[in-house]
């Protein structure tokens, strides 16, 4: 089995994580099995750790944590397998109070999925330890919209979600991953439209829904708006061989040659909100 050494990101920005993720999967082919060696990592973030978790769970790949400085942390978040039900997440939280485990959402049990996502969102909110008005809405809005997209569009039965608040750095990272058909194939299969991966991302951000109903297609761009404009955060969306990296002041569509993520990865980072937030202008 081929070994992949996960490269330590050059810095802690989302872009740094994206480059490390790119170098991890660059040149790989779909359905290959790997041994992912995490021994080089001194720290990690959801954008790097969650796609690897999803990949390992959907293949016969393995992980190697020998001499890994973050072995305890990875154990505390239940990497790579995650948890897929509420009693299990409660058990993990009791044993490692500082960390929220990786959550695995399954299509087949709608109520269990909804309750697990509910608990995840609630744990993320609690981790911020804030009483600032409207922040719960600001946090829950993108999580719920982006997770629901997995089960509406990806044709996959499993989705992954993970989040971590860094109290010393005062920011929250969230990552949501699926290994479904991806945006390009969704437009092709549902509407007969041929887009490149980059153009498919652009269409999503223009609110171009693959559903016939004109009232659809608001979830992703309004979520990005909440993150970047409302919360002054950064937003990354990866599908196939393209990635969008956005902030309040810029949108960059990045070509990822020799890389192909089958599905969609969304990650965002928001500073701990200090001011009240009103969701109304973002949903109207």
């Amino acid at each position, binding site marked *: 089995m081929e070994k992949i050494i996960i490269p330590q990101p050059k810095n802690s920005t989302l872009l740094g994580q994206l480059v490390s993720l790119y170098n991890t999967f660059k040149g790989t082919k779909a359905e290959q099995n790997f041994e992912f060696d995490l021994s080089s990592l001194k720290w990690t973030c959801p954008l790097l750790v969650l796609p690897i978790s999803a990949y390992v769970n959907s293949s016969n790949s393995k992980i190697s944590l020998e001499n890994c400085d973050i072995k305890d942390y990875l154990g505390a978040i239940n990497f790579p397998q995650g948890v897929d039900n509420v009693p299990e997440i409660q058990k993990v939280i009791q044993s490692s109070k500082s960390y929220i485990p990786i959550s695995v959402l399954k299509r087949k049990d709608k109520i269990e999925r909804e309750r697990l996502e509910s608990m995840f969102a609630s744990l993320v909110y609690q981790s911020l330890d804030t009483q600032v008005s409207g922040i719960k809405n600001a946090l829950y809005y993108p999580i719920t919209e982006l997770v629901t997209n997995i089960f509406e569009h990806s044709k996959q039965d499993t989705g992954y979600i993970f989040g971590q608040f860094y109290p010393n750095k005062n920011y929250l990272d969230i990552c949501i991953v699926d290994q479904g058909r991806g945006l390009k194939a969704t437009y092709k299969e549902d509407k007969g439209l041929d887009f490149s991966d980059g153009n498919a991302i652009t269409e999503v951000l223009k609110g171009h829904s693959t559903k016939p109903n004109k009232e659809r297609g608001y979830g992703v761009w*309004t979520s990005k708006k909440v993150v970047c404009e409302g919360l002054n955060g950064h937003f990354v969306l990866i599908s196939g061989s393209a990635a*969008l990296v956005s902030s309040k002041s810029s949108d960059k569509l990045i070509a990822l040659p020799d890389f192909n993520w089958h599905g969609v990865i969304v990650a965002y980072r928001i500073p701990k909100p200090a001011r009240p937030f009103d969701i109304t202008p973002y949903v*109207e």
Partner: protein
Amino acid sequence: MTKENPTIIDVAKKIAPVISSRDITDILRSAISKAKTKSVNLDFSDVEFISRSASHALLTMKEDLHRKFSNKKEIIFINTGENIQTMFRAIAANRAVPRPKPTFKPERINIGSL
């Protein structure tokens, strides 16, 4: 004639405190269809948040069940907190007058340039 008491469905208990997915309407629709009364109240007392997608799906379901010829149901949303009301009102307004969608022109770069 005595007015029938509506059936009450506790949404948080039936589903979860955060209502996220569009497809949970299947579960509520089934519970509503089984109700022996024409009037059904969806009780949002312990619902902390409802997503835009789920709000849209519930409003659509409410209209569908009202339009039905047989087993027609009158759905009322009760005990909605301020944020739940905000979401339903925003989605209902958008259904009436859809908000224009954005233009989006990102700068295109190659990862090698970073």
